[in-house]
């Protein structure tokens, strides 16, 4: 699950659409299965998966009108490398910790994240829906992301069991 989240997240950084990112992950997984034994190691598989997801993401962007400005590919490579370098054992734990942290969020915060990332509304639309100022939405989102990041770290530091 952790690797899936990471490949999807890498695709999301390109397309900024969670549903498109999920589709891209599915395509990558399908391609990986058909490639089968061609990968020498898990690391090689992940490296290939990140590159393929990025390419698929860029193709998806080309098909969209008014697509967001994509980050420079050298930066995307840097981010993917850091994702790939994280110890494989930690990944599943982080993924579950994030899900647990989301469960613990107040309903209002989760609603904000849902509107932005599941419904895919731009921050301006979210601000309009919630009757809030755009700056306030950025501030709330920024604090939420930081809080979730800290929550994951805290959960991972706790001894298992």
């Amino acid at each position, binding site marked *: 699950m952790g690797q899936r*989240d*990471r490949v*999807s*997240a*890498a695709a*999301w*950084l390109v397309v*900024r659409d*969670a*549903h498109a*990112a*999920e589709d891209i992950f599915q395509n990558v997984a399908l391609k990986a299965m058909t490639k089968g034994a061609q990968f020498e190691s898990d690391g090689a598989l992940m490296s290939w998966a990140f590159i393929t997801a990025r390419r698929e993401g860029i193709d998806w962007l080309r098909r969209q*009108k*008014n697509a*967001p*400005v994509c*980050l*420079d590919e*050298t*930066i995307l490579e*840097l*981010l993917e490398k*850091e*994702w790939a370098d994280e110890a494989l054992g930690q990944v599943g734990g*982080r*993924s579950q910790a*994030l*899900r647990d942290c*989301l469960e613990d969020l107040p309903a209002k915060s*989760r609603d904000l*994240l*849902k*509107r*932005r*990332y*599941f419904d895919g509304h*731009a*921050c*301006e*639309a979210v601000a*309009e*829906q919630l*009757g809030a*100022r*755009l700056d306030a939405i*950025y*501030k709330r*989102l*920024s*604090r939420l*992301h*930081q809080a*979730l*990041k800290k929550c994951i770290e805290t959960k991972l530091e706790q001894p298992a069991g």
Partner: protein
Amino acid sequence: MTLSEEQNELFLRHLNGQLGPDEEAKVADLLRGNAGARAFLRAVAEQAVVVADVERLDQHKPQPAKVVTAVFRPWKWAVAAAAAFVLLAAFVIATTPPRHAAKVSDILGPCQYIAADGKVRDEVKVGTVLRVGDTIRTRSSSAWVKLDLNGGSLMTIAGRSRLRLLNVDGRRGFQLAYGNLWATVAQSAGAKPVSIQTPTATVEAKVAQFDVETHSMTSIVRVNSGTANVVRLADGQAVDIVADHQAIVSARRSRPFASARQPEPVNEWSCRLIAGSGAVFGKWLPPDKKNSVRLGANPLLIGKKTTIFVANLSVQCSSSPPVLIESGSRVRIRGTTRTEGPVYFGITTQRIKGVFFGKYTAKVEAGALGQAGEPWQVEVPLSQFKPKAKHLPGSPVGMELADIWIVSPKENAELEIHSVKFLPREVGQ
């Protein structure tokens, strides 16, 4: 290195596609040189996809069945009686025709509220609740009203527009008699579809973001997300308009009626005044020696004892593709005024494939118009347009141009317009 809150917000604005080239360069520099920045961006991306995944699972999660042990308790009779009463009340409520409401959540410029019982109020405040039968009018090119329809659904009318809440079976009904409307119909529990009647069409949507521009003979419906069903009243033909598509609904059956993909945006617009289709407010004047096309400003009563003189030109009505506003864009207008005095240029903007954004105006001083009675040509750069509301950014760069209007506050100025152009930045600028 830990990031500041401002830096975190910069990344979120980048992900929202809101940054200009300078800020994008700053984001790139931060990501190249700061591991903390990269860690934050990776965390946001992971959280975004996991939020979507969790919500997706939640929506497909079956509700657990509850096993109830049948134990008789006398107090249950009281609860049962209360429940029966509630059911009866619910039945009465359910058989009463449903009435919807809309709350004014934002307002700017002259507006008028006409209650169902005929009472008229020239001042409308945020928080005013409109009910079935009530009407709201935005009375000036620079005015707008935002309405909250509950459950996350929103509507904005702007410019010269008139909207009435209707009682339509199983729908949240509205009548847009004329003007511009932007609607976001969100999915929420128990929410009914929205139905908008115009002079030529009925537009219905369950979940969609769309806009409607309507005049007496034509309505233009553009759907940016979701689906809207549009019925042409002239013959009852219906089409579903999906995201990125639009339809022009004429009162004439002979005009084509079909869903078509929205054209790609362009960065300039020449209102084809000669074809007559772009002018949505004003009066045609007979040609004179100097000008074959003359659009005179029409009087517009915007409040008690206040009349302005306006000519208004719409991008959509001129059959132009969407027009993207860029840094360095310019508005060039030719016209005449018979007396010395300022004129005002205004632009209405909306998000590309999205909701109403805001209005911007620029004052053109009498000195820039030359001698009274002589034709003038004025070019106003985008940077001179000022936002009409405090919450708007200083510039509408990156937005879409919806219309341009020209205003003279004086009747004896006899403002007339001969040409309107929205130009891209000058080469080399």
